[in-house]
């Protein structure tokens, strides 16, 4: 996959205003005309429009176990760093109405079943942000009581480091998730390094072989074909 880097042709304002007048008066040639029209019109497909709508209306589940939940609430309802600017401030209490699960807090042995059940009962399409060191790995509590990392039983899309992460870090995580939802080409490296969300391991015995074949087949987005 070769990566071409070229500017998007964004000349400054005056040039574009001049081009617009020429376009209307029909003074510019066909090649230039072609580029102007392409720049003006937004060509999109249904999938791009759908992803654009989904990424700007992420409804997080009102989920919070420990200290990261305090920072998440400060991010969602706080004055300074505010998820409302990115469309994610509608915190829904029931998984039926939420499509983003921010795993804010520790995943204890007793809690893992409940967390997995919440994830299963969320409606499609759904995404998971593992917020904080305790959710991503057991953090500093590497002992009998915690499950070391939510990706042992949940497919995770974005990991936010920190203990607890600052509100700005959580917002950056949400932005990264939005890029991922929009299948932003800049996230192509995830496919090259097989770093997409840890997919559901297929129940079949030949897990290993099947997983490699399955992970290369699916695209960078979330629609992993699970049986």
């Amino acid at each position: 996959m070769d990566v071409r880097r070229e500017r998007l042709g964004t000349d400054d304002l005056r040039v574009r205003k001049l081009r617009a007048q020429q376009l209307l008066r029909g003074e510019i040639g066909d090649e230039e005309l072609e580029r102007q029209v392409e720049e003006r019109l937004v060509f999109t497909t249904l999938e791009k429009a759908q992803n654009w709508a989904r990424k700007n209306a992420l409804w997080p589940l009102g989920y919070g176990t420990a200290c990261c939940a305090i920072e998440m609430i400060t991010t969602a309802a706080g004055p300074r760093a505010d998820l409302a600017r990115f469309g994610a401030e509608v915190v829904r209490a029931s998984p039926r109405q939420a499509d983003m699960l921010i795993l804010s807090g520790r995943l204890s042995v007793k809690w893992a079943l409940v967390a997995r059940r919440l994830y299963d009962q969320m409606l499609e399409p759904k995404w998971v942000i593992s917020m904080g060191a305790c959710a991503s790995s057991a953090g500093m509590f590497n002992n009998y009581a915690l499950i070391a990392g939510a990706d042992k039983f949940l497919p995770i899309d974005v990991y936010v480091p920190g203990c607890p992460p600052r509100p700005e870090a959580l917002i950056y995580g949400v932005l990264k998730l939005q890029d991922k939802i929009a299948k932003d080409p800049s996230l192509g490296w995830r496919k090259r390094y097989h770093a997409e969300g840890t997919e559901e391991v297929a129940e079949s015995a030949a897990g290993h072989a099947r997983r490699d074949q399955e992970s290369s087949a699916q695209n960078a987005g979330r629609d992993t074909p699970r049986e």
Partner: protein
Amino acid sequence: MLKSYVPALVFLILGIGVGTAFTLLNGVLGPSRPGPVKQEPYECGLPSEVRQSFRFGISFYLIAMLFILFDIEVVFLYPVALQLKAFGVFALVETIVFVVLLLVAFVFVWRRGALEWT
């Protein structure tokens, strides 16, 4: 004669159209991955033992009926309120009678204690 009903017809069609669009669009666009757990009732993250054959208390039913009763009353007041100038004093008197009648019902219900909860 039919022409004066066209706005109402358009309104009706649009309403039904938008309603069905939203319900069906969801099924078409959203990826659907049915799972066994997804069908079970959600009870705060735990397997729930909610039995369908559960007998609700009578007070729930009473409150629901009273609400519908007085809600419909408000629905009837609304068009009258909009066109009160056009209908003139006659409509005003008529609505006052209508409200008083329902007020009697309200006082009866209140005194019988149907509104208290325990």
